[in-house]
């Protein structure tokens, strides 16, 4: 298609829209590869220390609420679906559907952060499980439990920070979508934001079992 809209959507350094689309996705995939290494360091550290201080890590895991963790996993999976549908709406040039799905994704992302903040972190803090701020737990394996909660707050905190960044990006996209910036020839920003959003979902898919589930709940 060589109409005026397609011509304006195509940056001059690219041969065609297909190449431009691939370049945008490739850039985001390479960024996500660096993110894999970023979270990988935390996961490697968690693996080592969990094996060194297994009883404390299992006891710490027991202090977490599986129901809220599973609920938050479901919230994130819902947000991934709405994000995928938002990309699809952008591809098909459905402006109203795109706006609606972006709003839904932002709302689900905020719901995740709110649940984490009010039902989990605040609770852990008040119960005395916040290392460095308010850690009052005394008893068997208290120091290893403190180490577990260091990992817990760091990993879920960094993940939540990624969610906040994602919500910010989606808010910018929402304004642009409302103004009609996107269409079948011009939706790379939505697609790459979607890749980032799904990646953050995948990080949680691994955090949930590692932090909440494998502590011997039976």
């Amino acid at each position, binding site marked *: 298609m060589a109409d005026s809209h397609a011509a304006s959507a195509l940056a001059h350094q690219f041969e065609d829209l297909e190449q431009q689309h691939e370049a945008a996705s490739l850039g985001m995939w390479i960024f996500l590869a660096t993110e*894999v290494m970023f979270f990988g360091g935390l996961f490697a550290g968690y693996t080592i220390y969990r094996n060194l201080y297994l009883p404390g890590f299992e006891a710490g895991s027991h202090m977490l609420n599986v129901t809220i963790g599973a609920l938050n996993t479901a919230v994130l999976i819902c947000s991934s679906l709405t994000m995928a549908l938002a990309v699809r709406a952008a591809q098909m040039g459905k402006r109203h559907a795109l706006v609606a799905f972006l709003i839904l994704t932002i709302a689900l992302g905020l719901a995740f952060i709110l649940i984490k903040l009010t039902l989990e972190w605040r609770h852990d803090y008040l119960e005395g499980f916040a290392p460095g701020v308010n850690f009052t737990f005394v008893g068997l394996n208290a120091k290893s439990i403190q180490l577990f909660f260091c990992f817990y707050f760091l990993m879920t905190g960094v993940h939540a920070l990624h969610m906040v960044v994602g919500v910010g990006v989606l808010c910018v996209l929402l304004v642009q979508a409302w103004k009609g910036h996107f269409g079948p020839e011009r939706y790379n920003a939505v697609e790459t934001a979607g890749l980032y959003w799904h990646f953050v979902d995948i990080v949680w898919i691994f955090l949930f079992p590692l932090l909440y589930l494998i502590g011997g709940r039976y």
Partner: protein
Amino acid sequence: MPGHVVPKRIYFFIFGSLLALTALTTGMAYVNLGQWNTIVALVIACCKATLVVLFFMHLRWSPRLMRVVLLSALLWLAILISLTTTDFFSRDWTPIPEGWESSLLRPPTASGNLLYRR
């Protein structure tokens, strides 16, 4: 129009599978499988991640270049985790030479884990 438009029902099917796998992994946590609990949880997590990557992130319909980037990321992650863990968990395989013992180290416990003195 660049890119592949995925039918809606595929997204909903993947969404349903992800929710079902979440319920499965949560349920399995309450079944005593010994050491297999960790393996089952990680295998289910890998399945969920694969579904997200292939369908939600469109890797199934993406050029090979994107797959190379993802595989290289996973390769480096594997190097990071495997080399670090092999170092830590093979330390008690060989005896520590006379006079080289760390004051922090206790002999390995029956469970095989290295436990450091607090």
